[in-house]
């Protein structure tokens, strides 16, 4: 799914990285635990999280995640936005809660990662 479609489905605002909206993600992962993000994301995945701190960007950098959606209307600070810009990461923010945001993407065909990190078809 293109990031532009993710943006549309979640009625999200792009905070930075508008130029990468044509990039595709194969799966999504919704989580506030960064160690689990490190353990389970294995491929082109959009991360949905309610955490908005520098560690989220660091975590994304370690595993080459290039798209993050902040849920529950969370807004990243200037420092976080700058960190994302330097790493070519797209940041979006949506007013939906994590559950609703994940549900909306799933409904439109974007699957989650399983605990082995592979995309699950159903």
């Amino acid at each position: 799914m293109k990031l532009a479609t993710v943006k549309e489905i979640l009625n999200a605002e792009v905070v930075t990285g508008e130029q990468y909206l044509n990039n595709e993600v194969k799966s999504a992962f919704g989580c506030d635990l960064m160690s689990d993000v490190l353990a389970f994301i294995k491929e082109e995945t959009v991360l949905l999280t309610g955490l908005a701190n520098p560690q989220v960007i660091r975590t994304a950098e370690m595993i080459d995640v290039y798209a993050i959606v902040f849920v529950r209307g969370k807004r990243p600070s200037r420092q976080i936005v700058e960190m994302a810009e330097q790493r070519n990461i797209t940041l979006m923010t949506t007013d939906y809660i994590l559950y609703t945001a994940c549900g909306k993407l799933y409904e439109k065909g974007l699957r989650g990662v399983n605990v082995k990190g592979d995309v699950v078809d159903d």
Partner: protein
Amino acid sequence: MTNKSNAINLEFNVMKDDFSRAGEASSKIKKILTQLGIVSSVTRRVAIATYEAEMNIAIHSLGGKIEVTINPNEIIIIAVDNGPGIEDVKLAMQEGYSTATNKIRELGFGAGMGLPNMKKCSDEFDIVSKKGKGTKVFMRISLDSKPV
């Protein structure tokens, strides 16, 4: 950075409680491995292992350092801190066990997955801790290890 007999040695200090900078060392290590053309699945293992180690030092210790040695066939990571040491290493290795405070949990860490994640990324893993002294974690990642 020093280069002796085909090995590259990197060393980074990690400060206690410095959460705005925690992750900088791992970020630099990842960049260097990418520049060296190390295969991405290995770089990923090293990035996760060093980042978890770096967060552990920042969260739980009085400060410490991460040493990375890049050899032609393997990468050695040594994370060592200045204390206070782990009471029960076996317990600390259990998934889900954590002594982290709520403040740490708000950062998205402290779920008790750090050491297990580090072990999972390593081909060889060893941890030695002495109460009142400090903790030393040894990790070896082979350059031909499979993706995790």
